């Protein structure tokens, strides 16, 4: 029983972080047909911004956290304004944008390295303390990660389904030309999507760094997992990405416990292959793209 509880706690913590990392990626792909290779470095930017605000400027943690989210959103907006909008209507956009965003990622990572160095700083955004369920100690940090992920992902789902803003995103995703004819400004919608994706990535980065440390390449591993999750869920499915992230987090924790830690990620990848053979469009993949 204790083992099951521990697997649940670890799996949900991992899953919540994966979910935050993958939902933004799914949203971007679903709306723009764009696989954002800079999504991982958005996480890094958010994590370092929070660290800088809390440790170097002495801001209270909630403000530092918000500053990190804002930095993620800002970097998403800047990338859209300086790079993406010029490529949107070009031939071969879906492939070219992968190369372009990979270039942005390398540039940003190198700038972070230049400015902060490679020292593995401790993320000050931590919630100290534990409580017990039976003999299992649960950290408030894990609970905080779960709550934060639920609030942010729930907020995004609500935005997409209950607001005119969300309607515009979904309309643009389904049929850009039709949306334009109905008065939706696609360029502005894309900008908003990149900002939201940046905010979500930053949140993931802050939470991941609170359980690990800061480093300029800290986004690479979560990006890989986020990509895997998006593929399993069906590229572009936002809710699907959230569900798949939690499921894969739990699955990985169970494999780590019962078979060995080293088998966690490889077996997860094997499961992904099986899923894709069975459902090539992913578990939640359909014809349309952004689906709440």
């Amino acid at each position, binding site marked *: 029983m*204790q*083992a099951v509880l*521990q*697997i649940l*706690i*670890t799996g949900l*913590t*991992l899953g919540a972080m994966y979910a935050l990392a993958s939902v933004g990626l799914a949203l971007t792909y679903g709306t723009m047909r764009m696989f954002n290779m800079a999504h991982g470095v958005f996480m890094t930017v958010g994590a370092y911004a929070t660290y800088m605000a809390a440790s170097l400027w002495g801001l209270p943690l909630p403000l530092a956290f918000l500053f990190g989210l804002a930095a993620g959103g800002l970097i998403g907006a800047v990338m859209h304004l300086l790079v993406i909008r010029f490529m949107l209507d070009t031939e071969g956009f879906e492939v070219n944008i992968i190369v372009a965003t990979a270039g942005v990622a390398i540039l940003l990572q190198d700038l972070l*390295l230049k400015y902060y*160095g*490679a*020292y*593995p*700083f*401790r993320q000050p955004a931590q919630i100290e303390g*534990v409580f*017990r369920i039976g*003999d*299992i*100690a649960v*950290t408030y940090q894990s609970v905080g990660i779960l709550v934060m992920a639920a609030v942010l992902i729930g907020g995004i789902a609500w935005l997409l389904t209950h607001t005119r803003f969300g309607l515009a995103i979904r309309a643009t995703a389904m049929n850009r030309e039709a949306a334009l004819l109905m008065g939706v400004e696609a360029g502005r919608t894309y900008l908003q999507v990149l900002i939201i994706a940046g905010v979500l990535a930053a949140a993931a980065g802050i939470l*991941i760094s609170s*359980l*690990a*440390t800061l*480093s*300029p*390449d800290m986004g690479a*591993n979560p990006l890989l997992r986020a990509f895997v999750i998006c593929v399993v869920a069906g590229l572009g499915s936002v809710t699907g990405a959230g569900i798949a992230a939690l499921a894969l987090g739990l699955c990985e*924790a169970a494999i*780590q*416990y019962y078979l*060995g*830690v*080293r088998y*966690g*990620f490889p077996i997860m990848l094997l499961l992904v292959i099986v899923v894709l053979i069975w459902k090539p469009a992913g578990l939640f993949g359909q014809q349309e793209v952004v689906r709440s």
Partner: protein
Amino acid sequence: MTNASSRRAFLAKAGAGAGSLAFLAGLNRSAEAQDSSPVIVGGPLPLTGAVAADGVEFKRGLEMAAEEINALGGILGRPIQLAFEDTESKGDDVIISAGQRLIDKHNANVLISGYNLGSQTALQGVASAASLIYLHADTARAHTDLVAKEPDKYWSCFMYCPSELYYGFAYLDFVKHLETSGQLKLPNKKLALITGPITYSINIAKSIEAKAADYGYEVSLYETVQAPTSEWGPTLAKLRENPPGLIVVTHFFPQDQAQFMIQFLTNPTDSLVYLQYGASLAAFRDIAGDASQGVLYATNIGVLQDEIGLAFTKSYIARNDQKASPNGGGQTYSALHLYAVAAALAGGPGTPYEEEQNRKIAARLKAMTFRCPMGVIRFDQQTQAALSYPVQTKDPSLGMAHIFSQIKNKAENGHIISPSPYDIAKFEKPAWMK
């Protein structure tokens, strides 16, 4: 101030390596400078990626040594100039490219690194192909096997620390001694081994696993984690289900070890925790905070806490910052001083493919007994790896000390508790143990 008096003043203030500095200064004084071109010291270092915490220190160590040596006139009048290439904490392909760039682009006179990942035989190939001296602290059996097998090919490659294999029985010897001397009473004889995906970690875990039964311990868990690992829940669940008396983590990334301790202490078992190497770095204490206190670690290339070691530590931290790790920087710092003296004795540095001169330097390196902040570097003649004290030699003046330390205070380096005569503190039972 005259040149001579400024050198005297510098020596008086020099934090470390005063003996080698004085020796080098003497050689420089007697040399007639015929060539003032810089000596390029190439550092193929892991400046980014998972082990960058160490890479940064390796760079600082080289910079500090170069400053000191240049203040004394360089190597026979030639100033040292540093060139770095990032090996990115990656595998042989990246490491080989970095080493090759240092030779082809920078025309390095020598390659000096701390450690790199990969097979730990990559740079030996690069250096031997260019007949160039290469000094490293990979702590790898791969080096000793390679050099012992093909000494004619790898004559220019030196590992200025012992191999990782000694960690296994040195650890078992150490805990057995704690038990038999009454300093430690374990609740059981179970030993949990947690290793990582890198050869160094695996070799150490395997060597402990192979010998544990001889010392009366039973390996109750052998777990391999991924790198990096920040979520230790499943591993800790296994430990808590079957609590061992001894926990050994040979996965050595300081940030991962710090997370292990933070998560372990939320519900600790009655176990003595030993963390391989990573805990010797300031980054570990910085991240783990209070959870670092009581932890045991060992390194076979760590700064001693004697007169020379403490002076180096003081200078190193003053030159860098409070978060700097002398244990990392001290490695390359010592290696550059060692090379400078050997090259000066051999009549000057060699260039790439200049086999004759580089062979002279190699011969000097093999013959030297060199005292530095990390202890004594004296090379085994077959493997060209530094001899270990007390594992390979019982004379502390002839081998590099395999030191065990315990962190008593998160703000300080661990205190050396073994071996004699370098120990400065006694083992204390960690607060989480019953």
